[in-house]
C-alpha cells in the first residue's frame, strides 16, 4: 500500500539573484511499513525532501500525497495539524525543550495529537523509566535521542522522519537508536499500526538495514533501489 507519493515535486530557493534548485522534478512512491534510507552528499536535497514530506515547508510545484491526501496545498494551520497527527520527527540534535523534564517533553504532544499514546508506556518502550523526571541537560546524547524518539512515537504517527538520527552519537549508541527505529516498522505492542520510517543520512552503512534506498544528487533521484533482504541492525558491521 502506498503511503507517500511525490508527483513532479520541485523546490527552489531564491536568495537575491541567486536561484537554488533544491529539488528538481522529483517523483517517487513509498510503501507503508517500510524502512527507507535516503542517501546523498550534503546539499543534494535530501533534507529538503524530508522537510517537504514533514510539512515544514511547501513545494514550489508538484504534489505530495500522504495517505491519500495532498499536503502540498495545505494552509499553515492545516500543516500544523498534519505535523501533529501524521508525522513524527527525530533530529540530529534532538531538539528537546530544555526546561521540560523527560515526562513533560513527551506528554506535551498530548495537547495537540488526537490519538496519542500513553506517555509512561512510551518512556518504558525507550527504556528511560529511571530518568522520567530528569531534564534533558542531565541525560547523555543517546538518552536524549531516545526521548526524542519517544516524543515522535507518542503522537502515534504513520510516518517517522529522521534527519541524521545517529549523527551526533557514538557508534554503540547509534546502533541502539537504529534498533529502536527498525523495531517501529514492525509495529509495537502499543500500536499495532506499522510505521513507515524514513532516515536521511550520508552514512552508507545505515543503508544496509533499509527496505529501500533512495540516492539523491543535485536535487534529483539518482536511484531507487528495493532491497529484498535487508540486514538486521546486529548483522551490520559498524
Amino acid at each position, binding site marked *: 500500500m502506498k503511503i507517500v507519493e511525490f508527483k513532479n515535486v520541485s523546490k527552489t530557493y531564491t536568495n537575491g539573484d541567486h536561484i537554488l534548485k533544491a529539488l528538481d522534478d522529483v517523483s517517487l512512491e513509498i510503501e507503508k511499513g517500510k524502512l527507507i534510507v535516503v542517501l546523498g552528499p550534503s546539499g543534494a536535497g535530501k533534507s529538503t525532501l524530508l522537510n517537504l514530506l514533514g510539512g515544514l*515547508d511547501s513545494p514550489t510545484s508538484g504534489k505530495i500525497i500522504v495517505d491519500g491526501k495532498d499536503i502540498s496545498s495545505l494552509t*499553515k494551520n492545516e500543516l500544523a495539524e498534519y*505535523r501533529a497527527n501524521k508525522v513524527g520527527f527525530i533530529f*540530529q540534535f534532538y531538539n528537546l525543550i530544555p526546561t521540560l523534564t523527560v515526562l513533560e517533553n513527551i506528554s*506535551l504532544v498530548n495537547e495537540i495529537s488526537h490519538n496519542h499514546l500513553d506517555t509512561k508506556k512510551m518512556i518504558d518502550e525507550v527504556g528511560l523509566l529511571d530518568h522520567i523526571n530528569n531534564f534533558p541537560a542531565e541525560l547523555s546524547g543517546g538518552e536524549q535521542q531516545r526521548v526524542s524518539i519517544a516524543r515522535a512515537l507518542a503522537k502515534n504517527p504513520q510516518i517517522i522522519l529522521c534527519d541524521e538520527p545517529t549523527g551526533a552519537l557514538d557508534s554503540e549508541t547509534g546502533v541502539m537508536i537504529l534498533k529502536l527505529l527498525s523495531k517501529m516498522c514492525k509495529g509495537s505492542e502499543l500500536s499495532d499500526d506499522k510505521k513507515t520510517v524514513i532516515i536521511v543520512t550520508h552514512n552508507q552503512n545505515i543503508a544496509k538495514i533499509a527496505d529501500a534506498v533512495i540516492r539523491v544528487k543535485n536535487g534529483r533521484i539518482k536511484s531507487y533501489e528495493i532491497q529484498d533482504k535487508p540486514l538486521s541492525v546486529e548483522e551490520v558491521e559498524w
Partner: protein
Amino acid sequence: MLFRKTFRTIRLYLAQFISMIVMTAIGIGVFVGFNMEWYSIERNTNKFFDETGFADYRVFDEIGFSSDDLEKIKNIDGVDDATRFLSVNTTVKGTEKVLALAVSENIDVSGFVLIGDGEEYNADSEDGIWLSKQYADKNNIKLGDTITVVYKEIEISGKVLGLIKSGEFLICLPDETQLMPDFNTYGFAYISPKMLKRTLGFEYYPQINISSNLDKKKMSEKIDNVFEKTMVILSNDENVSYVQTQGEIEEGKTMASVLPVLFLAIAILTMVTTMHRLAINEKTQIGILKALGFKDKKIIAHYTSFSILIGVFGTLFGIIIGYLMGYLIMNPNGTLGIYFDMPEWKLYVPFFTWIILILINALLIVIGYLSVKSMLKGSASDALRPYTPKKMKAMAIEKTKLWSKLNFGVKWNMRDIMRHKARSFMTLFGILGCTILIIASLGMKDTMNDFVDIFYEGAINYETRINVSETATNEETKELASKYEGDYAGSTTVKINDQTIGLEIYNITHNRVKFIDRNMKFFELGDNGVYVCERIAKKLNIKVGDKLVFLPYGTNKSYEIIVEDIIRTLSETIIMSEKYAEKIGYDYHINLVFTNQKNIEANKNIVNTQSKSSIIKSFDTFMGLMNLMVLLLIVAALVLGAIVLYNLGVMSFMERYREMSTLKVVGFKDSKIGSLLISQNLWLTIVGIIIGVPTGVFLLKYMIEKLASEYEMKPTVNILTYILTIWLIILLSFVISLFISKKSKKIDMVESLKGID
C-alpha cells in the same frame, strides 16, 4: 577592524540599543529636569529676594508705628536694616479688581525692581504709582495712565510711573483661601510715603519689616523688650511668598529623588540583562577573537565600548530632555510662570547632578565590563564553546500534586521564568514601575479633586466674604451679618509656645462655612474645645485632649484651651466656636462676614469683599496644571513600560526561538505558540499589578505627606482609578506581547532546526 565590528554589532541589536539609550535618556532627563527645577527656583528667587530687599521679619501693630519705633528697632543689635511698611487691599475704582497698595518708607527693604522703561522710584513723588507689571499687562495699563483705588471710602489716585516686580509679592495672593494667583484681578502697587501722607493726612504704618539674620526666638525677645509688650512678629516661615517657594523647592527635591530613581533603576537593570544577553550571543565571536590572538584587554575594550556609547548618547539626550523639561517648568509663560511673578528665569543645574551623571556612566561601563569579563574566563577554546545556561533546578511547586495537573504551557512558562530570572524580574520591574507611576499620578488627581471638591465646593458655602474694618464694633458687624443673613467670624493671631498661630472664632447659624475633620467629613463645631489643623498639630506636637495656653498680642492676658479634635483646614489655623470663646472669657474682634448674597452695599465698615467665583477661578488654573502633569506622567509611564516590555519580549523571543520552532515542528499552531508567549507576559503583569498597586498607593501617601506643609490633603484613590490603572497596564502588556507573539509566525523551522554550528 574591531571599530567597524562595533557598528555592525550595533546594527544587529539596533532595537535594544535604541531602547536602552531612550531609557537612559528618560531617566537622566527626569533627573536633570527636576533637579534643575528646584535649584533654579532657589537661585532665581534668592537673587530676586536679595535685589528687592525681601524682609526676614515683619512686626505688626494695628495702631501703627512711629519713626521713633523704627529707630528703636534699627538700633537692635543684629538688625541690618528696617522699614516702616504698609500693605492694604484696595478696590480698583469701578471694578471688582483688587490691588494691594504698598508703601515702604525705606525702599531698600521690601522694595521692588523696575521692569522696562519708566521712572525709577522717587520717595518724594506726590502722585506716582509703581504698578505690578503682570497686572498692568493683563489689564492693558500703560505708563502714564491714571488709576484710582478705593480703601474704606478713601479714593487714592495716581499716575503709573513704572512697571515693577517685588519679592514681597512673588506669589501674589489676596489671602490664604486662594490657591493660584490671578494677575488679572489681583495685583499690587507701590506709592511713596509722601503720597500716603498727602492722601491720608497723616502717617500710618502698621508694620515694620526687618532684614536680619537673628533667629526667631532672639528677634522676638529683643523686639518685645524694646516695646515692653508682646508683639506680633512673623518670620519668613509665615510669609506666603517664602513658604510657597520653599514648598515648591521641597516638592522639586522629592520629585527629583523619587521619579528618576525609578526610571534609572529600570534603565540600568535592563542594561544589565541586555548586556549579559549580548555577551552570551557573542560568546563564540569573543572566542574567535581570542583564538586569533587578540588580547583580553582589547576584546574587553571593544565590548565595553557598547555601554560607553549607550551612556554617552543617553546622557547627551537626557541632558537635552532635562533642559527642555526645566524650560517647560521654569519660564515666565511656563508652569511656574502663572504662579511666580519674578523677573529672571535662568536655568541652573546643581553641581552634584553632574557628578551623579558621571557615576551613572561609570556604572554603565562597569556593567559592560563585567558581562564580557565572565565570557573571557579560561582559555580560548573555553571561550569558543557556546554558552550553556545553568542547570534547571526543580521548583518547590513541582513536588506538589498540583504540578502534574498543570498543562504543558503553564509548566513551560513557569520554568522559563525561573530559568531566566533576570529577564523575568526585569519584566516584572518594568510593569511594577509603570503601575506605580500610573496609580500614583491618577491618585494624585483623585486626591486633589477630593480636596478641591470638599474645601471649595463644600466648605466654602458662601457667595461673598466681607472683610470688615478694624474700626467697626462687634455690634455693627453682627448687624451687618444679620442684614445679609450671614455668619461671622474673627480671625486673629495669637502666641502659643512662642509661636505665632492663627486663631479663628466662628459663629455659625446659617451654615455658610463648613468644617472638615480628618476623614474629610463635615462636622459641626462643638463648644467644649478648640479644633487644631493638622499642620499646627504636627508643628507643635499637639494631641487631642491636650491643654494649650494662648496669649493674644498687645495684652498681658492668657487663656487656657482644650484640644477637642485635629481637623483639616485651608489656612493654618486653630478654630473655636463663639460659645467656647465666651466660656473661656476671650473677647475677640469680628472681622469677617460670610453671606450667600452677591450685592453688598458699600459701607464704612467694609474694607472689601471677595466673591466665591474669584476663588474658584484660581483653582481652575491649578487643576488644569494638575491634569496636564498627570497626563504627562501617565504617557511617560506607558512609554517606559512599552519600551521595557518590548525589549524584554524580543529578548525572550530570541531566547526561546529554538524551543518554539521545535514546538512548531511537533505540530503546535502559531496561534497556540503565540498565546503561550502572551500568557507568560500576562502572569508577570498580574504579579506586577498585585505588587504595584499597593506600592503606588504607598508612594502617593508619601508624596502627599511631603506636600502636607502646603495643603492638608487626605490621600484618596477612587475605585475608577484602580480599574483604569489595572486596565491600562493589562492592555499595554497585552498589546506588546501580541506584537511579539505575531513574530511566532515568522519562525523558520527548517533553518532553526539545522543544529548548532
